[in-house]
């Protein structure tokens, strides 16, 4: 049963990955990573703009989603136990988690894009960051709750102030789980298209500017996949493969970096 269960879980992932390799690998070449899209009719061209764009968007999103999420998770677990504000924050986080991503896109569009009168990388990053907050908040809260009471008492008993104990002892003890939560949130928004449609908007040129429209891998994949050109379809497949690989690589990298320095026998 366990073997069967494992197979059922792993099979779809392997199937998707294998199909992506089959469809996309042939279009992957150096140009794909170093060139921007070419006009319709010309062969070649790549998605450098989209890879860079996704990098910028995810950096902005992480810079917003991770600190806000961890801070509110700490509040929920350590300071707001049982009070009304905490319950409200927890409820809001759960609702936010269930809001369709396109709705987040529209909200950011009307709050940032409309007043500024142009699409921008910043607004796209904000939309993705908002989507990261609930996942980070709730995993931080759950992980902090798993830290034994005895560990907190040990810190207080040493004459460590409460806030210091929260930062240096409780958060540190729960850090592995919290990092996993951040990675989950990151991987989830890395593949989001809908909230970027009318915020980041897309850009056929290289751009790193926060106040300009910017390309993103999922967005480019969407545009290319619904286009009528075979050339673009192939690039869309290659883009999907790159997106998946980038997510796996960045998650593994963070795991690897954070697991170094872990001591023998630490739980």
């Amino acid at each position, binding site marked *: 049963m366990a073997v069967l269960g494992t197979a059922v879980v792993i099979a779809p992932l392997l199937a998707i990955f294998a199909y992506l390799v089959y469809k996309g690998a042939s279009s992957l070449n150096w140009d794909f990573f170093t060139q921007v899209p070419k006009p319709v009719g010309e062969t070649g061209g790549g998605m450098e703009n989209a890879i860079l764009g996704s990098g910028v968007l995810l950096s902005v999103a992480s810079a917003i989603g991770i600190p806000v999420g961890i801070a509110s998770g700490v509040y929920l677990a350590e300071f707001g136990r049982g009070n009304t504000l905490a319950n409200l924050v927890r409820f809001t986080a759960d609702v936010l988690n269930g809001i369709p991503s396109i709705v987040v896109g529209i909200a950011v569009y009307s709050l940032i894009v409309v007043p500024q009168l142009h699409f921008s990388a910043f607004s796209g990053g904000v939309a993705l960051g908002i989507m990261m907050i609930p996942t980070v908040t709730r995993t931080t809260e759950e992980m902090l709750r798993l830290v034994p009471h*005895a*560990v907190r*008492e*040990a810190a207080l008993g*040493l*004459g460590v102030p409460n806030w*210091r104990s929260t930062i240096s002892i409780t958060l540190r003890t729960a850090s592995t789980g919290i990092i996993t939560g951040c990675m989950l949130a990151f991987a989830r928004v890395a593949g989001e298209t809908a909230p970027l449609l009318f915020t980041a908007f897309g850009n056929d040129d290289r751009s790193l500017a926060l106040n300009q429209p910017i390309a993103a891998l999922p967005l480019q994949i969407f545009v290319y996949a619904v286009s009528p050109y075979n050339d673009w379809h192939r690039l869309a497949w290659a883009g999907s493969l790159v997106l998946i690989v980038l997510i796996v690589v960045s998650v593994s990298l963070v795991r690897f970096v954070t697991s170094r320095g872990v001591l023998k026998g630490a739980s």
Partner: protein
Amino acid sequence: MGVGIEVKELNAWYGETHTLRSISLKIPANHATALIGPSGCGKSTFVRCLNRMHETNPIARVTGSVKIGDLDIYHGVSPVVIRRRIGMVFQLPNPFPTMSIFDNVASGLRLNGFRNKKALDEIVERSLRRAALWDEVKDDLRRKSGASLSGGQQQRLCIARTLAVDPEVLLMDEPASALDPISTAKIEDLIFELKSEYTIVIVTHNMQQAARVAENTGFFLNGHLVEFDATTKIFTNPSDKRTEDYITGRFG
């Protein structure tokens, strides 16, 4: 050096439950004092009032006065400062699981802003030696986690961590109740060693342990301090009938 403790009319509550009723006693400096009594009699609450850990529970409340040396700990002092002067060892060993052995011992000082690396090395070694753990861990100080040690070693690590902050009083809440007899014997030897430098208050369920390590013993029952006297007197010729019943095993 240790200092004496003087408790006057101490009352404590958890919510509506009145767990300590008018406790007054004097604990002499540089002696070990044992507190015995059945479960739920208030002896743990009592030691937690001595370093203001009791009030970390939001529904807890205390009245009365506790003087540690000349310092009235419930008036005009921060509980954080009190807890540095009055160290505590808990029933279950509670090393910080993500920290190395060295970091565990250094944690109390570091988290209070101590930055002198060389001094820290010395303090950690001295504390581990005092806790009779140095020889067992000196090769793995920074490599192994505190949680990788055995239960008895973990408890001595916690004692070393408490000693590193250099307290004057050491409170121990059933420090050996989760340990095997050999580890228990090591902890008891340690208490014997340490009382030349610290005032020790130890809560225990084990009456033989009280008789072995402590000069004075207090008997708690239902939130009252029934009797407080020299250990030999308590165990051979108690003045109160209830103490006699308890130590002869007729109840509790």
